[in-house]
């Protein structure tokens, strides 16, 4: 800038200053004597002290003590409160790291409130006051800010407290903590990067939504509190409990990702992030999503100390929720506890409309968490000289500590589970979510946090940090108390706690590891030693009175006249369905030119070229309910390469360079099928001798590694890079029946396409996305039938005894209507070159949350290792056969 420009600039500023000063003077007079102008808003005539404004401390229904109130009445119920000393409606985050003895303040503001997305600048205080006219946009922005800031500060205080308690130098740890000891250094207490613009959480207080709602969008780091003109005078922002709930989702994100940023061991001054961020819950219905909703409801109670959420804003849509069984909304329908799985579909406002819905199921979680906190209040703090508010704060802090520690372990994408192992010094050692390459898949699909996984870890943390006689913070709440409460809610779904650890070291020969193998190792940064247990603490079985565990043997496809599966092959429906998956954020990539909903004929058969939705209609043959039924259609270790010395993938490129070394896969015999005479591979091995080796049917992949490119560096310009399979490469689930003159057997799709159809690589599903050669994820064993990634998993909420899933769902609603959501249907592509009459068998794997033998095979309570979930032992294999018919 030149001197002339600068002078001119300053001159202009002076002019502006004079005009502005006059305007301010005039407007300040107007404040006293006249009605307010629109431009200066909505500023209130009264101020309430520096940085203060008028705030509604609760929603209109509560403040006016009238749950039937129809419009927001603020008259006489507003309270002066400190908003912020900042000039704008924004705030920096402050986190106290008790271990590093560090107070961290975000370099930039970490949250802000705007009216909506069109507002470019934040509102600012006037006359040092945040008082604005009731019902004005500014009034609601200020109020939204007040509540967002209030819970933000409280949460960071609770998290700091959790870090301090868990890493306390006075605590004799037997469990490696999941919460990192250096939260202040990595900044994981808030968003991705506290030093960048991405730090902002933006909350929109008047967010236009044609369909009234509220949402948390982690990708844009925003919370949208809905509004539209159809609801005169109504806004979601009028209900602080909704604000706290949405903020609860943001805190779940923070807690799930506490371990996903770390100090780079090669450069201690740099932090690095894992490949992905974790999320609790997918799209549609699942128990992880239900946990997220239940925890978010708890965060409303955390601030309000009220066991009811959304009495105003959610009640308008019949969506308010109680958090205690005695709440009038339940109308006495809950004689004991809101237990799992009985009340999974239950909706307290309209109990006749039960449905698989994460908010319905999440009520079990919120009721449990509130009840647990009440136990802390009763057991841990009543003898201390605390007032009610202090007891609530102390008790909820303990619950948040348990949630943080649990979610940090569950969401760990580094797969380490703890800093106990000197963070990344032992690069090939993993204790949770399989390994760093597969952690997203394991944590979100293969072993996702269903109610069992969550409460097994949560229970372990209660034992260690609350109940333990020498190290717990409240031994008065004993392990028996904890197990009794869990059982009251039907959540005592496990037989032991994961105390000893079950990890794997991939260095050299893959070996399993327990924490005890690292006895005395120093916890990085905090400098304390840990002395791990060498066995798992077992659940006291006498405490299991209500929780029922069921064997996986009782789940199957119906063998009578009931539907085996529901098929969706209507053209319009499948187009809409794929569109909805795309909208929800599933990564859908259709094969090009070989299968398309355009080919769908809607005849409820599976025909060449179609993209078909399948919903298995599983039946529960037991006398107790099964819940959290998960059906997996992703690749798994169920086939065997006939010669591991010939591992090259059958591609055009490999046929040129490695024609004598092309791999040939055969199905392993599982549950006695297929017989050897039908093409099945049977490992005739006396128990334990000789030991199964890499590549055998009874050896499960330790890494879940699919494909390797060993020759790429030697010859980088060969299009296919000569890829080979890993010996235990997970394989697509469908095989095909092949008949020649002498026999009929089950073979791989690759074998069939070569021998029976003579199809080239480009005629196979999942062909090259660029149109030439094959893609790097190409596997000819899904040449004909391909389960679509992004839609290769289904979740069924529960199946009642002796019923199918559809019968169960129909019984939950008055009209008996079965509604399919995006979580209940898997999608398969059917290659257009398949000849009608070709028969396939697909090996779906299924398990459920309250399963007795899906998590261990000897009823011992010691769960399977993570890698074993790449095989069949933890699952019931469902053979789904179908014949392609034109």
């Amino acid at each position, binding site marked *: 800038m030149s001197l002339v420009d*600068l002078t001119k600039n300053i001159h202009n500023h002076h002019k502006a200053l004079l005009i502005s*000063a006059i305007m301010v*003077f005039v407007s*300040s*007079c107007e404040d006293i004597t006249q009605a307010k102008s629109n431009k200066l808003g909505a500023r209130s005539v009264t101020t309430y002290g520096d940085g203060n404004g008028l705030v509604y401390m609760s929603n209109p229904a509560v403040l006016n003590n009238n749950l039937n109130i129809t419009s927001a009445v603020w008259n006489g119920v507003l309270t002066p409160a400190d908003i912020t000393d900042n*000039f704008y409606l924004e705030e920096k985050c402050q986190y106290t790291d008790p271990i590093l003895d560090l107070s961290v303040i975000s370099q930039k503001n970490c949250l802000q409130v705007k009216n*909506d*997305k069109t507002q*470019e*600048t*934040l509102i600012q205080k006037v006359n040092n006051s945040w008082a604005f006219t009731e019902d004005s946009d500014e009034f609601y922005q200020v109020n939204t800010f007040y509540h967002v800031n209030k819970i933000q500060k409280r949460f960071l205080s609770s998290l700091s407290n959790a870090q301090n308690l868990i890493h306390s130098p006075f605590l004799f740890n037997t469990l490696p903590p999941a919460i990192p000891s250096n939260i202040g250094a990595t900044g994981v207490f808030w968003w991705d990067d506290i030093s960048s613009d991405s730090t902002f959480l*933006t909350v929109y207080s008047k967010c236009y939504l*044609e369909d*009234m*709602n*509220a949402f948390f*969008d*982690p*990708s844009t780091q925003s919370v949208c509190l809905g509004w539209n003109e159809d609801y005169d005078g109504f806004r979601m922002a009028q209900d602080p409990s909704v604000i706290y709930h949405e903020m609860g989702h943001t805190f779940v994100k923070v807690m799930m990702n506490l371990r996903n940023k770390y100090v*780079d061991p*090669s450069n201690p001054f740099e932090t*690095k*992030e894992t490949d992905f961020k*974790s*999320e609790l*819950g997918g799209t*549609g219905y699942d128990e992880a999503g239900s946990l997220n909703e239940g925890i978010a409801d708890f965060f409303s109670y955390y601030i309000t100390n009220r066991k009811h959420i959304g009495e105003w804003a959610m009640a308008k849509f019949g*969506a308010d929720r109680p958090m205690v069984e005695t709440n009038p909304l339940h109308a006495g329908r809950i004689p004991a506890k809101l237990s799992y799985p009985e009340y999974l579909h239950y909706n307290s406002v309209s109990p006749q409309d039960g449905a698989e819905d994460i*908010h319905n199921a999440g009520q079990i979680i919120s009721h449990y968490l509130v009840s647990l906190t009440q136990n802390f209040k009763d057991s841990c703090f009543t003898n201390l000289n605390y007032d009610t508010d202090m007891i609530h704060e102390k008790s909820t802090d303990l619950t948040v500590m348990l949630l943080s520690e649990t979610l940090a372990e569950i969401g760990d994408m*580094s797969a380490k589970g703890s800093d106990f192992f000197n963070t990344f010094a032992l690069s090939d050692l993993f204790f949770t979510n399989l390994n*760093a390459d597969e952690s997203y898949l394991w944590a979100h699909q293969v072993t996702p946090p269903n109610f069992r996984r969550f409460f097994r870890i949560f229970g372990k943390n209660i034992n260690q940090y609350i109940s333990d006689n020498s190290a717990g913070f409240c031994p008065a709440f004993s392990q028996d108390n904890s197990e009794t409460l869990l059982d009251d809610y039907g959540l005592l779904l496990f037989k032991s706690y994961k105390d000893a650890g079950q990890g794997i070291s991939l260095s050299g020969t893959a070996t399993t590891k327990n924490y005890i193998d690292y006895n005395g190792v120093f916890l990085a940064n905090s400098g304390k030693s840990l002395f791990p247990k060498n066995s798992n603490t077992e659940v006291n079985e006498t405490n299991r009175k209500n929780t029922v565990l069921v064997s996986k043997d009782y789940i199957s496809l*119906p063998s009578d006249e*009931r*539907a085996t599966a*529901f*098929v*969706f092959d209507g053209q319009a429906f499948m187009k809409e*369905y*794929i569109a909805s*998956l795309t909208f929800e*954020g599933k*990564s859908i*990539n259709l094969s090009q030119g070989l299968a398309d909903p355009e080919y769908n004929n809607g005849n*409820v058969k*599976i025909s060449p070229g179609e993209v078909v*939705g399948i*919903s298995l209609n599983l039946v529960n043959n037991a006398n107790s309910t099964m819940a959290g039924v998960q059906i997996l259609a992703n690749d798994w270790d169920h086939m065997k390469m006939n010669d591991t010395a010939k591992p090259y993938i059958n591609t055009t490129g490999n046929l040129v360079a490695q024609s004598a070394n092309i791999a040939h896969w055969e199905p392993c015999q599982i549950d006695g099928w297929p017989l050897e005479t039908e093409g099945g591979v049977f490992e005739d091995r006396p128990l334990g001798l000789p030991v199964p080796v890499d590549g055998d049917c009874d050896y499960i992949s330790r890494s879940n*590694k699919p494909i390797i*490119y060993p020759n790429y560096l030697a010859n*980088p310009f060969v299009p296919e*890079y000569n890829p080979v399979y890993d010996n235990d490469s997970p394989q697509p689930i469908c095989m095909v029946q092949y008949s020649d003159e002498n026999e009929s057997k089950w073979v791989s799709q690759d074998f069939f396409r070569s021998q029976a159809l003579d199809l080239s690589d480009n005629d196979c599903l999942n062909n090259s*996305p*660029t149109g030439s050669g094959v893609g*790097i994820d190409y596997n000819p064993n899904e040449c004909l039938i391909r389960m679509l990634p992004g839609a290769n998993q289904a979740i069924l909420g529960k199946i009642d005894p002796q019923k199918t899933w*559809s019968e169960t769902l129909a019984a939950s609603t008055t009209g008996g209507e079965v*509604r*399919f*959501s995006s979580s209940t249907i898997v999608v398969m592509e059917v290659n257009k070159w398949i000849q009608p009459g070709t*028969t396939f068998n697909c090996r779906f794997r299924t398990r459920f949350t309250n399963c007795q033998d899906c998590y261990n095979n000897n009823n011992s309570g010691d769960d399977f290792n993570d890698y074993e979930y790449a095989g069949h032992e933890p699952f019931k294999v469902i053979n789904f056969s179908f*014949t392609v018919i034109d």
Partner: protein
Amino acid sequence: MDNKNNKSPIIISVFAIAILSVFILVDYKSETGTLTKSNLKPKSNSHLKSKEVKRPSRSIASLKETKRDIPLKKINKNDSNIIIDRKVVGSSSKKYTLVNKINKDWKKLATKKLAFTWGHKIGRIIEIDSIKPAIYVKHGIGKNVEHVRISLTDENGKHSGYEAYIDSESGSIIQTWNRTRYEINKRVSTNAKGKGFVGNTLNYKETK
């Protein structure tokens, strides 16, 4: 009117002058390149006005170029810049073999693929904002990827967003996460009625 109120215009004016003076200083610093308050404000991205989203203003294939887009140059596979420009996400100790190229049209390809699976309807908006290019390594296989933020707005103004890795060569979505979470559940496929069949489709028998 009490004494306090009588004085308030003067007090307010004095404060206003003081505050505006601060603004002058702030803006002066801004011109001279110092980081200032105004610079801390988010960039004025072309947010849709809330009312505007109701109108079918753009075609499905419309593509939003944002200021944060990082220009992609055409890179030869042998060009060591691939490694220099793009950082490996996750552990730096990962060894890998890079198996794809960088296509400068990756965003167009990605938009086209999203438009294909989402379906063509007037008023739908797809926005892909680049966060950063990277190399994503899994089991020793490295892929050039684009870390992006995808925002979808349907013809009724409903929004959905998520982060994703997009293959820099093919434009295919590799993985998504951080998806929008709505409060009041509206099912995607409410009332969809599937038809069941018994046993193998070969002996097809339809049931309710």
